[in-house]
């Protein structure tokens, strides 16, 4: 039997409904494991099906759905693998995190719906579906950030995220409207031909700049990054993990699609928006600002938040290199990096979630000596952080290497050099946390009563995946490069 091309997305959507139904049908207090189980299995299942499709060659010739509004191709499937894996880890960890909170079914169904939205962002083939998918991610994300509604930080995070998110959605949709005004089409393929030689140059230019702004918000790139530290700090830690890993990957996925299929560099020459330059500047500023700000943080979650801005900067290199001689290579490397990043960054945030469960404080000092009590989690944390820094204990080193090599091959060697310098800087603050947990003496006693199974399992899976991807990077990069070649058609 052949499964429909959109099965991964169907699985996620149906599971979201199933979670709500389960909540309505069995309104007891002991069904947390059922809800978490459904969410985890559905997310892992959709990632697994997408991976299976990838391996089986589904979408090697893109399958167009809904009159071309969605395209299931290798790229879309790869993005689904990324967001599905992250969602599975997050759902698994949430089992412990939301155990004592009300409205758990809503929580899990929001996670699943957001994931469905993210994977649709990877498949969007028209500005409209792209925008709808993006909103399908944003609305659950606002609610998730504010999920701990008696916690001031969480509510503030949700509110800030919502206000800035709504503004940027407005900017994005206005940009889309302007592009539509100039071209009269929404579909990516149609846009590509409509943009070439279009006479409404000013309209198009303003529209494109606004679209770039919308994406910069979604990916937490400078200058629309300032919501991220606040939102990630206040939100429940699994949600922070989810937003900073999966939602960012989805934002980049849509950006890649738009700027390769709909508004490719070649046809934009006359519009007057030198967007490879814009992206190059954004990349440089984002990675530098993110890393410098991360280096000065005292709060662990904020440090991770700023470092995730830094990583957005690395991926922006790929957007800057579009239209260059090595564009397939660079987009492939960016996809591979997003996949690896999904595991290592989620893992790091989940260790923070673990610490929050134990009532460990928020600053570096509070983490001092944690390894004495929780060696396994802290070993995993060391793997995540070193891998994020680019030391080859995990796959982060390889994916970064290829991103930088891609930049060099595209003639953007100054960006690569800046990236290397930033990576070196990042090692300082990442190793500071490793040092805190492993080397420093604890200041007081930790009150670690329990070992939350779900979070532990998720952390270990993420750590194993981070290391395994280093060894198996060949498989990842093969898939990533064939996914990238869909967009740039090399």
């Amino acid at each position, binding site marked *: 039997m052949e499964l429909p091309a959109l099965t991964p997305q169907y699985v996620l959507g149906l599971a979201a409904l199933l979670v709500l139904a389960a909540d309505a049908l069995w309104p007891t207090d002991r069904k947390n494991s059922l809800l978490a189980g459904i969410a985890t299995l559905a997310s892992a299942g959709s990632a697994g099906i997408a991976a299976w499709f990838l391996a089986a060659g589904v979408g090697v010739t893109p399958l167009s759905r809904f009159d071309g509004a969605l395209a299931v191709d290798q790229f879309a499937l790869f993005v689904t693998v990324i967001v599905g894996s992250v969602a599975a880890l997050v759902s698994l960890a949430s089992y412990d995190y939301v155990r004592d909170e009300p409205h758990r079914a809503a929580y899990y169904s929001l996670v699943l719906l957001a994931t469905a939205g993210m994977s649709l962002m990877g498949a969007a083939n028209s500005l409209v579906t792209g925008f709808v998918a993006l909103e399908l991610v944003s609305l659950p994300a606002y609610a998730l950030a504010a999920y701990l509604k008696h916690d001031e930080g969480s509510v503030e995070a949700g509110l800030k995220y919502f206000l800035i998110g709504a503004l940027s959605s407005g900017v994005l949709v206005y940009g889309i409207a302007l592009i539509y005004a100039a071209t009269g089409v929404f579909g990516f393929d149609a846009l590509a031909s409509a943009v070439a030689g279009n006479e409404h140059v000013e309209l198009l230019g303003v529209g494109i700049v606004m679209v770039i702004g919308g994406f910069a918000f979604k990916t937490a790139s400078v200058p629309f990054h300032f919501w991220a530290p606040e939102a990630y700090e206040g939100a429940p830690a699994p949600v922070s993990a989810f937003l900073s890993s999966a939602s960012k990957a989805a934002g980049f996925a849509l950006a890649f699609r738009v700027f390769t299929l709909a508004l490719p560099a070649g046809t934009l020459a006359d519009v007057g928006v030198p967007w490879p330059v814009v992206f190059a500047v954004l990349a440089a500023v984002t990675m530098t600002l993110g890393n410098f700000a991360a280096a000065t943080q005292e709060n662990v979650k904020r440090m991770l938040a700023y470092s995730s801005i830094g990583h957005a900067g690395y991926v922006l290199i790929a957007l800057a290199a579009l239209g260059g001689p090595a564009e397939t290579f660079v987009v492939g490397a960016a996809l591979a990096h997003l996949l690896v990043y999904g595991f290592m960054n989620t893992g790091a945030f989940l260790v923070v979630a673990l610490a929050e469960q134990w009532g460990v404080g928020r600053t570096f000092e509070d983490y001092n000596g944690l390894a004495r009590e929780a*060696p396994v989690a802290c070993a995993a944390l060391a793997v995540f952080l070193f891998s994020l820094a680019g*030391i*080859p*204990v995990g796959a982060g*080193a390889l994916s970064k290497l*290829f991103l930088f*090599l891609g930049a060099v091959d595209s003639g953007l060697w100054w960006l690569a050099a800046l990236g290397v310098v930033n990576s070196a800087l990042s090692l300082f603050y990442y190793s500071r946390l490793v040092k805190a947990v492993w080397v420093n003496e604890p200041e007081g006693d930790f009150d670690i009563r329990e070992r939350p199974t779900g979070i532990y399992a998720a952390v270990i899976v993420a750590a194993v995946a981070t290391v395994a991807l280093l060894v198996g990077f*060949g498989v990842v*990069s093969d898939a990533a490069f064939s996914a990238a070649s869909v967009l740039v058609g090399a």
Partner: protein
Amino acid sequence: MLIEALLAVTFASAFAVLLAPEKYAGRLAAALSLLPLVGSLYAYATFDASGNAVLGGTPAFETTAEWIQAGAYTIDWHVGLDGISLPLVLLTTVLTTLAVVAAWGDVSERKSLFYALLLFTEASLLGVFSALDFFVWFVFWEFVLVPMYFLVSVYGGPRRRYAAIKFFVYTNVASLVLFVGLMALVVATPVTSFEFGAIAAAVRAGEVGSAFGLAGSTITAVAFLALFFGFAVKSAFVPFHTWLPDAYTEAPTAVTVLLAGVVTKMGTYSLLRFNVTMFPDLLREWALPLAVVAVVTVLYGSLAALAQRDAKRLVAYTSIPSMGFVLLGLVATTSYGVAGATFQMVSHGLLVSVLFLGVGYVENETGTRMLDKVSGLADRMPVAAAVLVAGAFGYMGLPLMSGFAGEFFVFTGSFAAGYANAPLVTAVAMFGIVVVAGYLLRLLQRVLMGPFEAPESVSAVSRRDLAPAVVLVLLSILLGVAPGTLMGMIQNAAGALVGVLGGGL
């Protein structure tokens, strides 16, 4: 598949020890470390390689497997051993087992983690010495850093955190610089793989094109310097040595043995593989300045050692001139020079470990390392004293011990080197031996001779503690009496290299 098996067994052993109960961790680690040791001895017994692995020779136990194909670039899993790498693999396995045994009495808490980290270091070192692809090599190179950082910072002396951070920052900056240097080279050549051999061939054939707006020759020079800088920090040549005394002094004895015995050899080994093998022209051009670096390293290191009052710090400084001798041998680009330098790496690894173990005995028994607080220990711990004397004499270059053979080859090769004033430079460097003998004799005289004086009562060192040092002394004598046990294979690989370099003796 032998190398893969060695790596897999060692990594698996590290995990097994990590999970083992504290009580058994030490013994389990020692037992498991015998596996790679036996494996490397088997490799020695069945060794069958010809020429230099980077210059088209046939390495033993070679495997090549496709790993990553990304865009135009390929990264392969390519490992193999030739006459230059096998001696260092043997050094690694021997020293790890002995370090594990030496640590039994030393480490009292968080033992499982300690021994696991030691074995993890061993596995990474084996990877460094057997990799024939730059990226594989780099992964293992960075792998070494992480356990070393933890070993120093968690288990070290009072200033361990400072020492560990300094070590980490220094060597990591160095890694970054050399990484960028090599990447620039790869980008500027038509080579798309990271194979040592392919890079070497392209550079030697002058295929470095212009890139980044720089001419090919500039890129080659910059890459050469970047690589040299990276390896100089790791091998602690003056003026990049300042991390070394701190790290060596603060680390527990077993870790110092690995650090001084093998980790610094990563630097000189890689110098030989990259700078010497890949850039023969530049090396000849810059031989004199590099030889001057070597001489400064020798003289500065030995004079600084003279000024130390802490016995462990003194031994730490002794390591610096020895690395200077290795550099001197390498830049000579003569057959004796290169082979002698390789031999000296092994010899120094054995002997410096004896000295550190000896200082460890003194510290354990007397509770202090300060030279002015202890004297006359020879009566109270005669066998340990004898071992320390043997180690020091080997270090000074006593004939029939490995130190003599190594230094003799280095100096013979260096005298015959092609750069200007080579004999003069060598003669100045040889003066370092005199200083080395001076401070080692001072160490022996202060600590072992004279009337007995120590802050605590002193008893003889137990046989178990002595065993590692005795084994090392015996190995040093073996290599001194019969240098051919290693020299044959070293010359096989070094000879092929010198043929390319166009050097003589």
